[in-house]
């Protein structure tokens, strides 16, 4: 079976006054249809930029995709021009954004905005679109969905707005839904509701979901596979149990180690990874994590480790010493 999404050597650069920001560096991976992929990493590691690059929505200038292929269902998105991309966006890939407070247009009603998205890609009348918008709002669990159509975004709470955004994203039944930190701006109980909702919708509608987050707890609940990104590169990828149980990369080990745990003894201090992520303006030659890594050897500073498969397709890691480190992570 051919994968739904195949990204090959994607590179995105921002040409700023201070120099070239290397935001996404040679990212390659595949996604099957119906898969939930979690993309994890700290702020500024290129998670969002790589997703926006796929949709060709990075601000240009200064941003530019310099290399790579993004195959979605047998079509290389990066060869399409803006007109063709406008047809793909929304119909094949939809996106949900981080801040539900600002991602709905304040001057239009919720119903208008969902209807608009529906009318763009479907051949239906306004009446039908409005009915469908009502159904969608019901699907995402907004109480009194039909009446809410005439509400303005400011009349919705944060969680309701994010639900409305999800309804908008689902409106044309995309093959791939990109959720860019959709729960970051919400409080924890609403977070849990949204995660359950997305899980349920995924089972019902069967689309693939890319869930971008810095919250390892959220993806653990949701994702089938995980990409861990660091400084614009994928450093570890694999099935969820492989990542959590057989962690190989020292960065991922550090990330998991820095999570607070319920079974920690009271007074246990949280572990943090020393140092800061590298400046994307001047990436080191070797492994981007080398400067902060306690296992680094000389080779790490000279040559960037490739992503190698450990367990076939199920688990890959970009580290020279993964075999030696492996034992520590599983502890």
């Amino acid at each position, binding site marked *: 079976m051919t994968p739904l999404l195949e990204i090959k050597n994607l590179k995105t650069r921002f040409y700023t006054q201070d120099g070239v920001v290397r935001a996404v560096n040679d990212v390659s991976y595949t996604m099957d249809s119906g898969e939930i992929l979690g993309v994890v990493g700290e702020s500024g590691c290129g998670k969002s930029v790589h997703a926006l690059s796929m949709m060709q*929505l990075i601000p240009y200038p200064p941003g530019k995709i310099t290399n790579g292929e993004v195959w979605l269902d047998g079509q290389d998105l990066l060869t399409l021009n803006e007109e063709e991309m406008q047809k793909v966006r*929304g119909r094949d890939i939809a996106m949900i*954004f981080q801040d539900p407070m600002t991602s709905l247009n304040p001057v*239009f009603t919720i119903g208008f905005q969902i209807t608009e998205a529906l009318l763009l890609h479907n051949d239906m009348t306004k009446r039908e679109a409005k009915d469908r918008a009502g159904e969608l709002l019901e699907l995402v669990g907004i109480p009194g969905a039909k009446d809410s159509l005439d509400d303005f975004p400011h009349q919705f709470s944060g969680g309701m707005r994010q639900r409305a955004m999800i309804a*908008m994203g689902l409106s044309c039944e995309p093959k791939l839904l990109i959720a860019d930190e959709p729960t970051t701006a919400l409080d924890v109980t609403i977070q849990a509701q949204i995660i359950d909702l997305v899980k349920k919708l995924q089972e019902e509608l069967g689309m693939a979901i890319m869930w971008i987050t810095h919250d390892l707890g959220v993806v653990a609940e949701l994702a089938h596979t995980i990409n861990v990104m660091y400084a614009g590169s994928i450093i570890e990828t694999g099935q969820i149990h492989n990542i959590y149980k057989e962690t190989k990369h020292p960065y991922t080990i550090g990330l998991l180690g820095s999570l607070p745990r319920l079974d920690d003894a009271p007074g246990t201090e949280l572990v943090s990874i020393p140092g800061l992520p590298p400046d994307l303006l001047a990436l080191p030659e070797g492994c981007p994590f080398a400067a902060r890594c306690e296992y680094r050897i000389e080779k790490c500073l000279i040559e960037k480790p490739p992503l190698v498969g450990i367990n076939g397709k199920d688990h890959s890691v970009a580290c020279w010493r993964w075999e030696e480190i492996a034992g520590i992570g599983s502890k």
Partner: protein
Amino acid sequence: MAQINPEEFTVTDFAVREHRSLWGDAWGRLISSNTARLGMFIVILFVFSATFSHYFWEYEPKKDLDYSLKLKAPNLIVTEEIPSIHPFGTDKLGRDIFRRVVHGGWNSLRVGIVAVGISLFFGGVIGLLTGFYETVIMTTIERIVLFGITGFLLGMLSAWISNQLIQLVVFTLLGLAAGYYKDILEGKLSRVGIFGLLGALGSAIPAFFMGASVALICGILGLLSGVLLSMALDGRFFSNVMMRIMDMILSFPGYLLAIAIVAFLGPGLGKGMIAIGVVGIPVYARLTRSAVLSVVHKEYILAAQSVGESHGRIIIRHITPNILSPIIVQTTMGLANAILSAAALGFLGLGAIPPEPEWGAMLGDSYRYLTSGAWWAVLYPGLAIMLSVLGFNLLGDGLRDALDPKLRT
């Protein structure tokens, strides 16, 4: 302890709230301000009197002449000497000033609306396009249109020098080709060479019939134009060029430029409107552009893009309604400014043609009689100008406070 009867209590559902529209809110704030109410009253009075006098009170300025009533002071009762009532007195040709002031209002209103309309339309379109395309990738069609227009403008310059239209065609075609084949040979020297050569030849050969020096100038111009068109121009370039042109217009003192334009077009109220309108374009262009820039990076624009909406739709449906409030305020203030400018042009004899009642022209006609004591011939048109300008300014201030309460200090 009191018995609680649950049926007596109704639960307030906070999620279901009364609809309060943005405009309703703004109206409430506007009407609650004294100065805004005063401004609104003056503006309504002004518009009402101007419109009604134009449609229901006939006045033929060319036939209005009565030397026997020359420069009479205001009178409210009929006397033997003056058989008619002139509440504002009469001017040097014996014309009733009250009547002329009221009818002059129609001209001021027209100037205001047409001039601001011109500035708002051109300025608004320039501002929207430059602001939007500064960070958004253009589609092929949009690029072709843009390059075609650039080519057309360059061709006009060349065609004007050589007095032939062929350059217009050559450059427009070059522009269209550059827009269409953007990706071919992009940034390569050969592309620059081909376009430069085509531009130089296309411009110089037809001009050669006019003389060698014209051909040389056109050739150099054509070369430069060709090289310019061959560059991979993007929205930022377009924006830069447009805004620098706006800066150029803005660098002239407004009245001076308006006088220059009127001198070029010839006097007349219509020409005056165009002149005042053109002078106002950069103000609106800059305002609109800055408002667009503040909105275009909002997430809802990204969200609109991500569901696949076209650029035209995003500009009209998502950006325009969100930038309306500063533009409404500026438009109201702009009306006052346009009325003032029209009066200034009229005073200098460049606006309305004499018998036409126009406040500025009336002032210009009568100030010489001020020394002989005819204060009324100057006072009333002057008051009319002052009041209408004050009214629009007060209303504009009120609107700004009403539409953007965050700005209030």
